[in-house]
C-alpha cells in the first residue's frame, strides 16, 4: 500500500491532535466509574490488609499530629483560637490538610505505580489520581469520628453556622483534585520528583494555617496568600463556621474558590496534554 518513497517527516497538517472536549472527558470518566471503584477498593484493601490496625490508621495520623501540636506548638507559640479548645482548633485544620496531603502523595504516585495497567488498554488515565483522592476522602470520613469524640470530650458544640461546611468542602476537593492531577502527571516524566514530595508536603503543612490561625498571615497579604493556597481560606472557613458561629470570610473564600477552580481546570488540561505521552516514557 504505502510503497511510495517515504518523506523524512510527516506533513504538518497531518500532525495528530487530541481533541479534549470537556463533555467527552466527563463522559469518559463516567464510563470508567466501575474502574474507579475497583481501583479505590484495591488501594484500600492493599493499604489496610497488612496494617494491623486497619482503618484506624486514618484516625491515628491526624490525631497524633494534633497531640504533638497541642503539647508543643501551642506551648511555644500562643495560638489565638477564638475561645475554642486548641485540640479542636488544630484538628479542624488537620482534617482538610491530611486529606490534601494523602491525596497528593498517594495520587501523585498512582500513575507510576500502575504502569503495567497504563500500557494495557485505553481508558481515561485520570481514574488513578481520582481514585486516590476518593480513598483519601474515605480516610477523612473515618477521621471525622475522632472529631465527634473531641467535641464530646471538650464539651464544646459545633455552631449552627456549620451548614457552610459543604461549600468549603467543595473548594477543598476541587483544589486537591487539581493539584493531584498535575503532580501525578509530572512525576511520570520526572521520576525523581517523587522523592521531593514528602519534603514539599511537610513544608506545606507549616505553610498552611493548620497549627495556627490565618491571622498569622499579615492582613495585607492574606488575599494573595489564599489565592496561592486556597486551603488556608478553607481551614479558616471551617473554624469560623464550626467553632466560632460566624459566616465564612467571603473576602478570602471567594478568591480561594476562584483559584481552586482555575487550578483544577489548568491541572486537568495539563494532565490530558501530558497523558498523550505517558506510554512513550512508561
Amino acid at each position, binding site marked *: 500500500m504505502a510503497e511510495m518513497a517515504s518523506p523524512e517527516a510527516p506533513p504538518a497538517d497531518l500532525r495528530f491532535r487530541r481533541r479534549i472536549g470537556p463533555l467527552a472527558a466527563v463522559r469518559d470518566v463516567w464510563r470508567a466509574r466501575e474502574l474507579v471503584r475497583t481501583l479505590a477498593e484495591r488501594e484500600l484493601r492493599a493499604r489496610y490488609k497488612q496494617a494491623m490496625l486497619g482503618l484506624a490508621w486514618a484516625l491515628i495520623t491526624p490525631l497524633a499530629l494534633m497531640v504533638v501540636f497541642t503539647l508543643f506548638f501551642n506551648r511555644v507559640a500562643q495560638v489565638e483560637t477564638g475561645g475554642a479548645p486548641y485540640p479542636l482548633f488544630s484538628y479542624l485544620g488537620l482534617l482538610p490538610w491530611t486529606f490534601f496531603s494523602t491525596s497528593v502523595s498517594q495520587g501523585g504516585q498512582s500513575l507510576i505505580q500502575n504502569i503495567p495497567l497504563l500500557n494495557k488498554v485505553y481508558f481515561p488515565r485520570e481514574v488513578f489520581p481520582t481514585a486516590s483522592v476518593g480513598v483519601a476522602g474515605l480516610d477523612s470520613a473515618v477521621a471525622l469520628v475522632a472529631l465527634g469524640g473531641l467535641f464530646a470530650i471538650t464539651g464544646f458544640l459545633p455552631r449552627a453556622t456549620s451548614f457552610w461546611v459543604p461549600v468549603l468542602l467543595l473548594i477543598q476537593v476541587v483544589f486537591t483534585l487539581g493539584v493531584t492531577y498535575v503532580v501525578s502527571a509530572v512525576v511520570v516524566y520526572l521520576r525523581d520528583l517523587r522523592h521531593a514530595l514528602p519534603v514539599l508536603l511537610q513544608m506545606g503543612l507549616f505553610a498552611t494555617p493548620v497549627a495556627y490561625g490565618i491571622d498569622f498571615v499579615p492582613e495585607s497579604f492574606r488575599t494573595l496568600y489564599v489565592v496561592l493556597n486556597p486551603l488556608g481560606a478553607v481551614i479558616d472557613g471551617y473554624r469560623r463556621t464550626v467553632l466560632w458561629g460566624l459566616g465564612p470570610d467571603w473576602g478570602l473564600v471567594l478568591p480561594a474558590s476562584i483559584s481552586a477552580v482555575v487550578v483544577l481546570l489548568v491541572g486537568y488540561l495539563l494532565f490530558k496534554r501530558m497523558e498523550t505521552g505517558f506510554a*512513550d516514557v512508561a
Partner: protein
Amino acid sequence: MSPKGQIHADRVWKRFRADRRRMLLRDELQRLSARIRRRGRTGWRWALRDVSFAAERGTSIGLVGANGSGKTTLLKILSQVMYPYAGSVDVGGRVGALIEVRQGIHPDLTGRENVYITGSLLGLRRKEVALRFDEIVEFAELEDAIDRQVKFYSTGMQMRLGFAVAAFLEPDVLLVDEALAVGDAAFQQKCLDRMQAVLGQGTTLVFVSHDLAAVEATCTRGIWLNNGISEADGPIRDVLGTYRRSIEEAAESAFTVPGVVRLVKTEVSGTDGGIPRTQEPLEVTLIVESPEPRLGIVFLGVSEGPAPPVFSLRHDLHLGAGETVARCVIPRLPLPRGRFYLWAGVYAPGGRDLLGWHPVAHFDVAGGDLDITPPGVVRLAPIHVQASWDVSAR
C-alpha cells in the same frame, strides 16, 4: 468511531527519542542546556512512517518484520495506549491486547483481581466478567494459583493469564504480540485454536510473531513492516514470500565469516547439475582451504529462511594443507517446492569452531507443495513425505 471490529489507520507516524533518557529531572535539565547551547534539536528516531491500513470486522492480519521495525509500536497505537505523532487511528469496539507478557497484568494483585481489573478496563461490568471467570481460569490452567499474587507466577503462568483474559473477554479487536512464544508447545496450540475460535465469532485479529509458520496458519492477510514503513500488504502467502526473500538477501551479505579455515566454494545442485527436485538426489560440494593439515568435522544444515535448520548432517573431515573437496549426496531430498538455505560450519574435534555456523548458499527446489494443515495448526518444518492412501467402505 468506527463500527465494532473495524480498524482504520491512516498515515500513522510515530517517533521516539533517540538519546538514552532516564526519567529524571537532572537528565531533563542536561538535555535542555544541550539544546540551548547547540541550538540543535535532540535526536528522534522514526518508529513508524506513513503506515496506513484498514481492516473489516473478522479479518485476521499477520504483522511481520524484523526486530525494531515498529510492529509493537503499531500494536500499542492500535490499542490506543500510545498516540501517534501524526496521522489518525480509529479502532471500533473493545480492544483486547496481549502485547508484552508482563504488560497489562498487575504484579501486586492476585490473578483473580487482575481478571476483574482487566475486565473493567475493557469496559465490562463485574457480572459480565464473573460469567466468563471460570472459563478464563480453566483455559489458563491456573485453578490452584488464581488467588495468589501475580508476581509469584512463573512467566508462563503470567502469559497464560494474560492471553486468557485478553481472548475471553470478548474483544471486538484482539491484538496479540510475540508473548505466545513463552508458552509450551501444547499451550501455544491452545492459543492458536482459541484465536481461530475468536475469529469465528467475528473478532478482528492482529497477530505479531516471528514464527512465520504460526502467522501463516492463523492469518489470511499479511502486513510487512520494514524500518517503520509498510513494505507489503496483501494475502498472507504473498507477503510472507516477499518478506522471506528480503531476509535471505540480507543474510547473503553475511556469507563470508572469518575462521581458521576458509570456504572457497559451495555448490548445490540436483541430478546432472540441474535444479534440485523433491524426492530426487541433491548434491552439495564444498571446497575448504586450510593452512595446515588437521582433523575437522563438517556440519551441513538446511533451513527455510532464517529459521533453525529443518535437518542437519555431520561428517568427519581430514583436511590437508591447501584445498580439500567434500561432496555430500542426499539421495532423496525431503523438501517441498520453495527456496531454502544451506548452512555450514567446520569444527575441531574438541568443539572449537574452525569456521562458524553460517548460511553459505540458497537454492530453489522444484517439485510438490506440502499438504496444508488444519486451520490454526502450525507446521514446524517443511518436510516432504511421500504417502499413499487407501480409503474404502467397510
